[in-house]
């Protein structure tokens, strides 16, 4: 499962950047998603997917890396027994 498409949809919805404008392997900062925007985007992702993300690695700068992180967290959440 990859969250990439869902993240692209969320970016389109929230920030008006469509998938064609943001190569998953390009720098998000260079597209205007700076550290502040990224902080808000992570908050939106947590809200949308009902997950809790770890503090992001400062080196993380592409949508593909972010999708991978979200995938890992969602897989981990799915593996947890329901309480």
């Amino acid at each position, binding site marked *: 499962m990859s969250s990439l498409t869902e993240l692209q949809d969320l970016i389109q919805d*929230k*920030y*008006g*950047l469509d998938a064609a404008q943001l190569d998953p392997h390009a720098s998000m900062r260079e597209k*205007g*998603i700076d550290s*502040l*925007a990224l*902080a*808000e985007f*992570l*908050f939106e992702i*947590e*809200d949308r997917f009902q997950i809790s993300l770890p503090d992001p690695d400062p080196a993380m700068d592409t949508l593909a890396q972010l999708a991978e992180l979200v995938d890992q967290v969602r897989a981990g959440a799915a593996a947890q027994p329901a309480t």
Partner: protein
Amino acid sequence: MSAAPVAITGLGVVGPHGDDAQAMFDALLRGESALRPVFPDLPRPAAAAMVDFDPARWFTKLQLVGVDRVSQLAVAAADLAVLDAGGLAGADRERVGVYVGCGMGGAGALDSAYRSGIANGSGRVPPLTIPAFMPNAPASHVAIRHGVLGPVLTYSVACASSAIALAEAAKAVRSGEVDLAIAGGSEALIVPGVVMAWQAMQTLAPFAEGQAATAVKPFAADRAGFALGEGAAFVVLESAQRAAARGARRYAGLSGWGVSSDATHLTKPDAAGQARALRHALRVAGLSPADVGYCNAHGTATRVGDPVERDALARVWGEEGIERLRVSSTKALHGHLLGAAGALEAVVTVLALHHRQVPPNAHVAQADPACALNLVRPGDTQAPDLRAAVSNSFAFGGTNAALVFERAE
């Protein structure tokens, strides 16, 4: 009368009467009120003057991240002022300053944080709440938008905030510290919690159903308080010499400013303190009271405030002179913009000089004898001899500001 050394060459307003300063002035001349009922679910009826604002004209969705409405309005109004002044081309950005008055900062961001963090029990607050609500965010956003590299300052002095911002900007221009200043104010606090807080202060005018538009009655016998307004207003200030050299249109000169403190009480106004600010402003301008033909009053229409302002004006103009001073409080029509009030009313006063027309003091069926003033009557707005005008802004906290403007001749 000396030529004012500081020229106003650009005006920008995003307020309850729209985003065209001239159209706003025309609406005020016609006595059109922008006050409407708001938040019907509140325990007590409330009226306010809101801005019909489309941020998409100034921001992409991505640029709006973490930008509260108060900063959005500031960026828009400052942009209009700069555009009106012919842009900043040719200005050394290190010698440009931004001077902004703001009372509360991003009230909407705080309100939303409380709601999401506490009221709905999530325990989560949007991560950009701090940069969104911090009161100097509007000034910073204006600076970023225009690449301003000189002083970028915020004045939070309640209702006098942006009058003081204009005064500080004018001082910086006159002293040569900056070549050009973008000065104004922004306020956007029409959210339920803030409206209720002002209601609890017993300062807002009550109104019968269908009467919201005429609820605010400055200097009237039956006045009962003000209504909140939101918006932003900016001016571009530069030396008269610089304006002349580049052939800029000069709306008026900002020639005098006076700031004083009551040092008596946090919220109770003081005529002596207000009179000190007025006298100082006239002295800086090199004018006598008789030179001034119009006063845009602070005029919040509270029971306590209006007679004190009348007393202050009478102390400076004298009981005879005050009969010749035409007075109006335009808060009856655009509401009280608090931190942005001084800047908005400065724009109104500048346009009054520019057009030699003065806006009416609306909604007065019977004036209060305790506020005996030469109020501008609706329809009687021509002022063919107007050469100088004053705008008053008196703040909670006891700080008083008066600005004197002169016609650009």
